[in-house]
């Protein structure tokens, strides 16, 4: 029997008395990429933290690659949101990527990383089209380039799942297109899970999207034509509009309370 890649069963979570997620259940098969969408405060980030084992559910079980999230961490590549790291920190591109190889049980005392790790870092940078940029200072890169470096860092552990938290939040449209090309090609090698506010990007990742608003519900893609027209009219990106999204398709089970 094929093991589900992600199996979330009746998961609830509350910060203190505030319930953020309520009986969330879904499962994902190997190689199935998808976007995590939903309004702000709907619980997307919380779900992400639960999948990464940074938070523990107050109810229910989560299994990632057949293991607990904590044990599966090594096989999940994580690309954090823009504000979570220090963009002015004095490191080079290679320094950042190599930090992806950091492990609890392995020491890499100053000054050198092993040859194998340095080669793997070069390979990761090739995967995100940044070959030859190893020596550039990270703080002088553009927003889009930084995102790719962070993707390369996440690829250092050769993960089976790549989790990205709003990777396009801080980049312009042209850069966004490049970033999405990179992610599209990575989808062939691993499961890509992307949290996004940008409805225009949803159809590019997988064949369905998971909408999280206290509960979770799958939306089959492509989204209805009028919806897409909405998104592309004027070539502008639009923020996720709950009303628009739920005006089409079957959302009987998608409770937004």
């Amino acid at each position, binding site marked *: 029997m094929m093991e589900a890649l992600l199996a979330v069963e009746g998961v609830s979570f509350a910060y203190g008395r505030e319930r953020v997620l309520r009986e969330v259940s879904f499962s994902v098969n190997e190689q199935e990429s998808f976007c995590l969408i939903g309004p702000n405060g709907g619980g997307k980030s919380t779900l992400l933290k639960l999948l990464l084992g940074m938070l523990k559910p107050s109810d229910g079980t989560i299994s990632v690659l057949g293991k607990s999230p904590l044990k599966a961490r090594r096989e999940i590549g994580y690309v954090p949101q823009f504000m979570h790291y220090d963009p002015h920190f004095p*490191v080079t591109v290679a320094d950042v990527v190599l930090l992806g190889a950091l492990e609890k049980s392995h020491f890499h005392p100053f000054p050198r990383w092993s040859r194998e790790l340095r080669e793997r870092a070069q390979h990761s940078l090739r995967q995100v089209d940044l070959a030859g940029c190893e020596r550039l200072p990270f703080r002088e890169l553009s927003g889009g380039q930084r995102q790719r470096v962070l993707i390369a860092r996440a690829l250092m552990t050769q993960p089976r799942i790549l989790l990205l938290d709003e990777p396009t939040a801080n980049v312009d449209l042209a850069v966004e297109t490049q970033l999405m090309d990179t992610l599209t090609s990575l989808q062939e090698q691993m499961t890509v899970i992307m949290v996004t506010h940008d409805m225009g990007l949803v159809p590019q990742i997988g064949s369905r999207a998971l909408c999280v608003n206290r509960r979770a519900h799958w939306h089959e893609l492509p989204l209805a034509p009028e919806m897409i027209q909405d998104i592309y009219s004027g070539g502008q990106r639009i923020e996720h509009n709950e009303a628009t999204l739920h005006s089409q398709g079957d959302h009987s089970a998608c409770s937004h309370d």
Partner: protein
Amino acid sequence: MTEFLESVRLNPALQYALIAGIIACVPFGVVGSFLVVRRIGYIAAAIAHSILGGIGAAIYFSRSYEAMAWFTPLLGATLAALLSALLIGFVSLRFREREDTLIGAIWATGMAAGLLFLHKAPGTGVSLESFLFGDILLTSRSDVWVTAIASALILLVVVLFYPRLIAVCFDPEFSDLRGVSSTRYYLLLLVLTAIAMVLLVRLAGIVLSLALLILPAATAARVFQRMTPIILGASFLSFAYLLVCFPLSYHQDLPTGPVIVVAASLVYGLTLLVTRRRGA
């Protein structure tokens, strides 16, 4: 210069101060660089001021009670520095919004406790000025040993955990995900800061200590783009300031600490003008 060298030859305190200063350049460069890139210089300042509390307590208790003669000012300073470092670290990680209040409280309470203890300490009066501004003519052979051991300890820890310290300073969340506890290594960094401050307060006094740690590193951080060159640059600058300002201050009959701080500020200001880059 010959005159200075002759004085150094004849005056052991000058020799000790010079040797201790030279030894400490590298660990100060290391700790200063981490403080600058992590932007937590103000924590080091609070630690420095809390040290007076520890020194005061040690002098008071060791003079008041014979059984407590083992409680030396160095021990008091180290305990106070470690305690305040861990306290600030814990609060800044758990209750971020209260961090500045706590830092202010530790800063002032450390000084106040120190003044009270020193006021009530039996025996001849203690020169408060030497704690506040340092007095290199009081440097002894044991200071050299303490500096050497503490410097070796700081360097050993940083060499062993270098990539981890960089990782938790750059992106603590990601470090946690990789199983490298950002809390633990942040506290380790503060402990190293506490040790460096104890050394620096002994050599240069409380008031000037922070500038001596921060200015060379901040200057290097304007010029270089990676941690290792920043650390080496900061260490080299500290060494250069010492080598230039020590004889200069001696020759002009000026206190050494302030001469170094003024020189370091001037170089930092010039660097700011020359390198108008973002960051650091």
